[in-house]
């Protein structure tokens, strides 16, 4: 590779191949020489180029922004969702994190709620179902009052932002031994529940989202693996916030219903 900054390392890739959701899957082994300047996904691009040249179908994997913001990418790398680097989505990981001779196991996100679509691509649509059940503030276009009418204490705005930074990648679910989606769900409940604009629907939202989450995902037993794997370092505190609000919601929603 002419003039590149990095050195070239040789790695052994064990890549999960699976033709479809119901097809049996298994590992395929490939040797790959790669510049340490390349990103992890560029390494997979090169593998695919080689496979295609050799007449073999490329490995299906998903990515889009390759900047750690869209949440499209995500694989298990040596058993860890998004790989070894902290606060880093798969697309931001670079090969300089690996050493010559390393063996790298690459699998799809593993979770009951995320069926494999093909090879390394999974179906994360249950995350959208959780948002659909209440992850919004009900305000039609044109119905909003002046933005500065409601001051929001800076601390609340900042904490809401910390939660809103979630990219919906699903790594938290993949990292959880129970395939629970508490971190993702609580990030949205925290984001909206901390803002004055989100108060009107706070209790109905929490109840609906938590219960939709439970339809698709396992239960939380406080392992904390989710936050470890999260590329945006969403805090476990939001899960505590959600749990508190859920208990309160159960009471509040009932009394509200009683008033009807």
């Amino acid at each position, binding site marked *: 590779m002419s003039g590149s900054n990095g050195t070239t390392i040789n790695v052994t890739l064990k890549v999960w191949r699976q033709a479809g959701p119901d097809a049996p899957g298994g590992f395929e082994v490939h040797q790959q020489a790669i510049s340490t300047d390349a990103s992890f996904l560029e390494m997979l691009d090169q593998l695919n180029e080689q496979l295609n040249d050799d007449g073999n179908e490329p490995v299906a994997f998903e990515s889009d922004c390759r900047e750690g913001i869209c949440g499209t990418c995500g694989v298990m790398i040596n058993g860890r969702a998004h790989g070894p680097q902290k606060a880093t989505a798969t697309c931001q990981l670079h090969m300089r994190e690996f050493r010559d001779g390393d063996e790298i196991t690459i699998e799809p996100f593993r979770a009951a709620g995320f069926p494999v679509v093909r090879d390394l691509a999974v179906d994360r649509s249950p995350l959208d179902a959780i948002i659909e059940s209440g992850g919004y503030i009900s305000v039609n*276009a044109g119905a909003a*009052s002046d933005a500065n009418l409601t001051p929001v204490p800076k601390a609340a705005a900042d904490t809401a932002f910390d939660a809103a930074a979630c990219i919906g990648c699903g790594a938290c679910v993949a990292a959880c031994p129970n395939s629970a989606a508490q971190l993702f769900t609580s990030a949205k409940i925290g984001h909206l529940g901390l803002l004055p604009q989100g108060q009107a629907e706070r209790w109905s939202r929490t109840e609906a989202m938590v219960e939709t989450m439970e339809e698709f995902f396992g239960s939380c037993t406080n392992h904390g693996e989710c936050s470890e794997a999260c590329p945006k370092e969403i805090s476990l505190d939001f899960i505590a916030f959600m749990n508190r609000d859920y208990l309160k919601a159960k009471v509040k929603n009932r009394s509200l219903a009683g008033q009807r």
Partner: protein
Amino acid sequence: MDKNGILDNKVPAGSLADKWENHKFSMKLVNPNNKRKFDVIVVGTGLAGASAAATLGELGYRVKAFTFHDSPRRAHSIAAQGGINAAKNYPNDGDSVHRLFYDTVKGGDYRSREANVHRLAEVSVNIIDQATAQGVPFARDYGGLLDNRSFGGAQVSRTFYARGQTGQQLLIGAYSALMRQVAAGSVELHTRSEMLDVVKKDGRACGIVVRDLISGEVTPHSAHAVVLATGGYGNVYFLSTNAMMCNVTAAWRAHKQGAFFANPCYTQIHPTCIPTSDDFQSKLTLMSESLRNDGRIWVPTAFDDARAAADIPEDERDYYLERKYPAFGNLVPRDVASRNAKTVCDEGRGVGPLKNGVFLDFGAAIARDGHAAIAAKYGNLFDMYQRITGENPYEQPMRIYPAIHYTMGGLWVDYHLMTTVPGLYSIGEANFSDHGANRLGASALMQGLADGYFVLPYTIGDDLADLLGSPAVPTDDPVFTAAVAGVEDEANRWLSINGTRSVDHFHRELGRIVWDRIGMARNKAGLEKALTEIPALKEEFHRDVRVLGSADTLNQSLEKAGRVADFFELAELMARDALEREESCGGHFREEHQTPEGEAQRDDENFAHVAAWEWHGGDTPQTRHREELTFDNVALSQRSYK
């Protein structure tokens, strides 16, 4: 279009400031109970598409929204960092709708339509209200009110922002509004569904054909109107800051169905991106241009100087922007900064292992303000840079180089955002409107949301009102069956070529040609070369591409093959458009047309018009139509940054 081929933009009469308000009153309305009798298709769920689909759903239309992503929250709008402009004048620093209008027309180098830009400035304030009500966590001051900053050389602070993730937060806002309508049953959402054709009946758009990216199934969908919100075409360059899957396919297929494609040569280069590091680079990463507020840009004075930055003494450094533009220095506009970086690299003074960058040096700023102050301002960006390059920008200068970042050209639309195909609309980056030949920073998010929340939902009713009582064309109509068969044939054609090289291989080669010939600076000879090189490579692509696998499963090479085929056709049109536009303006710089100081030289007498191209089939070149631009409210002037 009149008999001279001049396009009618349908801009209403009246004074600029009152046009939109008056027009909203004079447009036909669809009464609330009748709205549910209309089907509207929205393709794309970025800022423009998600906001349009949500708003149309709120109004009561029956909406079908399509995205080729696995979730509507992934669209490339999400990657916008800087902010969103709005004429709120909260800082009380003299901003106004008129000033935002004026800055946008001027920034667009007088190649945009005054009436559209004024409307954009008017609704900008509503966007901020809407987004705030949705829970978008914009930055706030200690009093809890919204904070603003000045951006991209604007002389007022009108940019609202959410850390460096404004696009993400606004998209999540639009996405949640969309999901609310999905829950309400007014929007039917189709994910992993790629639009591959627009269907017309009796000259009017009546639906689309879509391929399910998982099952490969090709299905027809009919509606009373179709809205394309499918983004820009920067990936024609292969390497750009666009997300990997951004493409021109939806817009291009609409073009082939009769929608004129306007100003394809207007492309925007962003000066502060990380240079490529090797031949397998898949995309480029942009770093906020706010870095230029504190970083000093330089290259070695000597050619082929291979010393480390620290070993190059002060008097052997060329701070070329500060030298050439003493008034603006490192803060000259994007295009000027970009072209100057190209010049010094072409001279052989580029830095880095591939000599393909210039230094952006924070040494002086760190010495002046301290490490902590710089880290507080730019910490995220420095971390990102280090993650990608492995170099520590606190210790050695960053290396930057320009990259393609936004495309101002796109489907031609009238004041109602309708294309030249009746019933077919285009919004957001996919259309050509509002930014002229150059987009100002923090204006992309504004335009996408203006179109989706506040413009299209009104204008579409005026057209639909006439269709009351006529049902949508049934999907078993021959126009649909033929279109479905065409899309299926296309997939099978790619799979049967069985050539030797991958789709990516051809895309990368195409990108090299487009970047070299239709990139930051263009000239006649280069553009003419492009017009022989592109067709030659295209022919090879159609003969020798290798797409493996089958059409009835997730097949990413197959998806890309169709997109790259469209890029080939677009690239040719870009070259022709650039060749015909014998002037320099905004992002289009023709080397033959520059002032003695090397600045862009417009030709207002002959080119104060939009070029809109009409497709005539693959074998006949497109014809060029014009929309004349008149400037009644701003005086045309020449930019100068000396």
